[in-house]
């Protein structure tokens, strides 16, 4: 007997039985769910049958048929609770009823298309705005470089100090180094696995594939150390990346191309790898393509398209910085050894810096030596690369983030209001369900599911809005020349952005679904069924009013902020720049790209001026190292006869080199003496024309005409001042400060005391005669006749050039205005909704009042009064908030008074007018109700 238990057949039978039992269990627990409808039907038939039998029994015992049926039903008990219990028992009840509720909610939403669309569109705008701004915030402020393990990267410097420094002292911290110092730090600092150096700026290279006859095109490039790619852990997409072997003075010149350029310009042609490209007319072999998405060491516009070894810099550039120990132009990023302590590393590098400085003690100026003790450096996390853009836009992005967050709040308030009104309108239905035995939790859950569904729909739509908006913002904020890489920010939402939108929409849904759901469930069935529209006191109207007040107050804040930003921008754009904006064209050229030597330049400029001057309609033409507004050159000034400035004295001035007649072309008035003229030649004495700020700064009340100064201490009588011109704004930084000192020297007098780069003038300014219009095409044609190989990089009017300097502030002012108007619109809709709903509830009351002799004016006032009180509250709350936000904006207003009364007044007026109109409409409508109809509605 015992043995047979272990017999295989018994075992098999046992196993089979167990399996069958398990399957039956499984089937019986799943089947009811899978066939929910069948189960409902079964219960219905059973109940039906039960009641029929009981009724028959009751009739037999002598009851009348109707009474018999009633008694049977009474005995059976409430149908709904039993069905509910039955369903609970049926298995997976939570999930099933969830699906049921979801389907029910979807059905309800389909039945109210206007409500659904209104909510989805509102949410899409709110979440779209917030998400697109967050995409920017994420890309600029939060994201790391697309490289291996960015947390291990450290960079030199706390802040970015673009782009060149000269000498042996740097203010505050050493953030830019020379090649010599880089090598010293690299070889003497042990904590780095790899320390790479790269150029801080991206020079534009003239690029032409060798053997092709087409004109050179300009693309930005960057000089990087041989271990640059190894340090980032970035491998080649095709071919190979640069190696330390490529970065030797005797190595054959090679370069790496970005994936973007390879794909867009060369159609992913595999023969590019190994091909010879002429970069600034110097042959380079392209050894590889960088992987897609890699944009170098920093987020910037334009991003480099070529990476060249540092040691090819002297090969490309006539006046190379590479071998000058005092010329600092390189940024450093290093990957630390696993487990290395960055603080110890920083200390080590500080010592190394001092050692290096001491080794160059003989080359140091007295000034450098005096400042030696305070020279120091800092390391900071480098996972995001060089964060110039972060420093530049942080404040703006914060402002936008706050503004879009406020819009989202307004949107949420609007949605809560709509939901509450919907909840109230559904009150009877809710009460009926509760009276029929629906459980309160189920009712609340139904409402909650509805609002979550809505918010997810809105979130999805918001993502679409965000994608489109981010693309647009990027295009407007960072305009790039055609063919160039724009700033490397993708408009498509990344994982954190998706998560952000999802959480934002879900929070909106849950937070603003809970209150209406709770209010709906609080309903006393009897009260609701009796019809509560008779009362004048409306339960739950306080939260709705508060929401409207909040909306209006926030819109006031946004409106006044956008007003301030717009007014400040207007003020700065309308200021007197010190030169003429109208009828002026600026053409940008780079003679270096066409391979001009410095001794050919004077003739080239003469030919350009003569050719362009002969275009009909051109009244005058001049060239400058840079035309306003643009980047510039600056250096120290030593005045003849004045004591030499101390190590801490500021003797800086910007300078420019211009052709004869330049001041007449840009229409900067000459105040004293003369401007630069044809009489200033290579053979005549070296002269300079200074601006008022220069005269004030270096000569005070003295007359500067005839005085001498120079760019270095031993040449303090190099220039003789022959004229003073009025101040003109060449720089768009520091707009809230007065124009800085500047001097101009003649193009004809080649000034070899400084970098040869200053000999290449970049901007041609063309003045049209009054009433004449000079087309860009005619200028291009003229330039082609001068030299077809000299490309014109861009040609714009001076007004466009100036406007281009304010692209980002303008975009931010416009975005904030858009947010302000959007929230004003939403607030008006919100107030309209609340006022209309309240007026609707009071139809009966209004009817009674009118029947008792109130006229239309009284009725309008009755309805309007409530709305006006809300507006007043909104202003009471909104005004202090506006002033607080103005304080926050203070630094972005270019020195405008942040408490500008006219801006605040305009915002108050805009808010007041639109919400007044929004509440006037329902007030007017309810004044049209006839008392008879009103009383009959009950």
């Amino acid at each position, binding site marked *: 007997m015992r043995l047979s238990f272990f017999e295989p057949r018994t075992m098999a039978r046992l196993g089979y039985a167990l399996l069958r039992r398990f399957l039956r*269990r499984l089937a019986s627990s799943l089947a009811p769910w899978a066939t929910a409808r069948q189960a409902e039907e079964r219960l219905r038939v*059973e109940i039906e*049958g039960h009641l*029929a*039998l009981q009724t028959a029994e009751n009739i037999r015992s002598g009851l009348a048929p109707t009474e018999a049926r009633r008694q049977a039903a009474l005995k*059976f008990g409430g149908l709904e609770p039993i069905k509910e219990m*039955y369903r*609970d028992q049926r298995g997976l009840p939570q999930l099933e009823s969830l699906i049921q509720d979801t389907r029910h909610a979807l059905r309800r939403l389909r039945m109210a298309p206007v409500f659904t669309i209104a909510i989805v569109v509102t949410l899409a705008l709110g979440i779209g705005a917030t998400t697109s701004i967050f995409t920017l915030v994420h890309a600029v402020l939060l994201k790391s470089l697309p490289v291996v393990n960015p947390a291990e990267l450290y960079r030199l410097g706390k802040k970015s100090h673009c782009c060149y420094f000269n000498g042996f002292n740097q203010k505050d911290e050493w953030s830019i180094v020379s090649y010599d110092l880089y090598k010293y730090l690299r070889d003497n600092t042990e904590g780095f696995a790899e320390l790479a150096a790269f150029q801080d700026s991206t020079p534009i290279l003239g690029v032409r594939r060798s053997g092709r006859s087409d004109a050179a095109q300009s693309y930005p490039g960057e000089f990087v150390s041989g271990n640059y790619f190894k340090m980032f852990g970035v491998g080649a997409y095709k071919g190979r990346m640069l190696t330390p072997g490529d970065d030797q003075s005797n190595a054959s010149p090679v370069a790496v191309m970005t994936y973007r350029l390879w794909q867009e310009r060369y159609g992913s042609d595999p023969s590019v790898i190994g091909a010879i490209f002429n970069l600034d007319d110097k042959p380079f072999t392209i050894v590889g393509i960088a992987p897609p998405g890699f944009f170098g060491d920093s987020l910037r516009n334009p991003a480099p398209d070529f990476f060249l070894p540092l040691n090819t810099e002297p090969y490309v550039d006539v006046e190379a910085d590479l071998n000058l120990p005092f010329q600092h132009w390189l940024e450093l990023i290093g990957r630390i050894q696993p487990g290395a302590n960055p603080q110890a590393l920083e200390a080590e590098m500080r010592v190394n810096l001092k050692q290096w400085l001491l080794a160059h003690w003989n080359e140091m100026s007295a000034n450098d030596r005096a400042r030696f003790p305070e020279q120091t450096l800092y390391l900071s996390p480098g996972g995001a690369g060089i964060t110039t853009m972060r420093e530049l836009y942080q404040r703006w992005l914060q402002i936008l983030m706050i503004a879009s967050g406020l819009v989202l709040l307004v949107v949420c308030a609007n949605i809560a209001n709509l939901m509450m009104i919907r909840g109230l309108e559904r009150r009877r239905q809710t009460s009926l369900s509760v009276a029929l035995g629906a459980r309160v939790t189920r009712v609340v859950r139904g409402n909650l599911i509805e609002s979550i569904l809505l918010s997810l729909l809105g979130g999805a739509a918001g993502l679409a809005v965000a994608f489109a908006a981010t693309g647009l913002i990027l295009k407007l904020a960072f305009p790039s020349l055609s063919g160039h890489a724009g700033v490397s920010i993708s408009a498509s939402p990344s994982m954190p952005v998706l998560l952000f939108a999802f959480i934002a929409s879900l929070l909106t849904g849950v937070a603003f679904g809970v209150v209406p759901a709770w209010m709906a469930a609080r309903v006393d069935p009897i009260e609701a069924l009796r019809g509560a529209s008779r009362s004048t006191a409306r339960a739950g109207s306080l939260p709705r009013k508060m929401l409207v007040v909040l909306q209006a107050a926030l819109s006031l804040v946004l409106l006044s902020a956008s007003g301030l930003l717009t007014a400040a921008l207007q003020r700065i754009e309308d200021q007197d720049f010190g030169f003429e904006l109208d009828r002026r064209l600026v053409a940008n050229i780079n003679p270096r790209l066409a391979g001009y030597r410095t001794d050919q330049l004077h003739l080239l400029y003469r030919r350009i001026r003569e050719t362009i001057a002969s275009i009909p309609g051109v009244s005058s033409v001049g060239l400058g190292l840079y035309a306003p507004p643009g980047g510039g050159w600056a250096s120290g000034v030593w005045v003849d006869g004045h004591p030499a400035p101390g190590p801490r004295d500021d003797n800086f001035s910007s300078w420019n080199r211009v052709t004869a007649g330049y001041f007449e072309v840009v229409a900067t008035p000459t105040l004293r003496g003369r401007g630069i003229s044809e009489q200033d030649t290579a053979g005549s004495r070296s002269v300079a024309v200074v601006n008022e700020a220069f005269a004030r700064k270096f000569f005070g009340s003295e007359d500067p005409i005839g005085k001498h100064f120079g760019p270095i201490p031993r040449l303090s009588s190099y220039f003789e001042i022959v004229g003073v011109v009025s101040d003109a704004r060449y720089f768009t930084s520091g707009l809230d400060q007065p124009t800085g000192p500047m001097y101009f020297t003649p193009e004809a007098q080649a000034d070899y005391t400084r970098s040869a780069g200053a000999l290449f003038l970049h901007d041609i300014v063309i003045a049209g005669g009054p009433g004449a219009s000079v087309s860009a095409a005619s200028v291009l044609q003229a330039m082609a006749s001068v030299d077809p190989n000299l490309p014109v990089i861009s040609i714009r009017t001076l007004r466009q050039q100036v406007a281009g300097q304010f692209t980002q502030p303008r975009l931010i002012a416009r975005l904030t205005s858009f947010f302000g108007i959007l929230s004003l619109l939403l607030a008006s809709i919100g107030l309209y909704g609340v006022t209309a709903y309240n007026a609707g509830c009071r139809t009966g009351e209004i009817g009674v009042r009118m029947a008792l002799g109130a006229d239309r004016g009284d009725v309008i006032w009755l309805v309007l009064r409530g709305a006006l009180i809300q507006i007043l509250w909104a202003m009471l709350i909104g005004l202090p908030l506006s002033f607080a936000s103005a304080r926050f904006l203070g630094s972005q207003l270019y020195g405008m008074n942040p408490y500008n009364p006219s801006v605040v007044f305009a915002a108050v007026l805009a808010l007041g007018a639109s919400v007044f109109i929004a509440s006037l409409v329902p007030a007017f409508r309810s004044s049209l109700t006839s008392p008879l109809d009103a009383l009959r509605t009950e």
Partner: protein
Amino acid sequence: MKEIDVRQGTLALMVLKTLDVLGPLHGYGIARRIEQISEDLLAVNQGTLYPVLLKLEQEGSLASEWGVSENNRRARFYRLTRAGRKQLDAEAQSWQQTAEIIARFFAIKAQDLK
């Protein structure tokens, strides 16, 4: 005597016993039988029987199939399965024991404990 509430477990036991004694039966039949036996002392809505029947069926103690009732309507007939019979025996036994223990407690008078 007051009507008493009935716990679900007790109701389930009554159902099992009813089917054990009377064989396959529809819901109404079970309800009537329970009423008769308890002589209307149970305050239970007849409807609450159906979730209990479903539960027992899911546990495998009952099986059910469609049949025709006395008044020629479609009705679901429940019968005891083998597992149900086992469960009934076990529950009856434990009920018996509980009842005996409780009865003993009530039978004991103070003087008996000396």
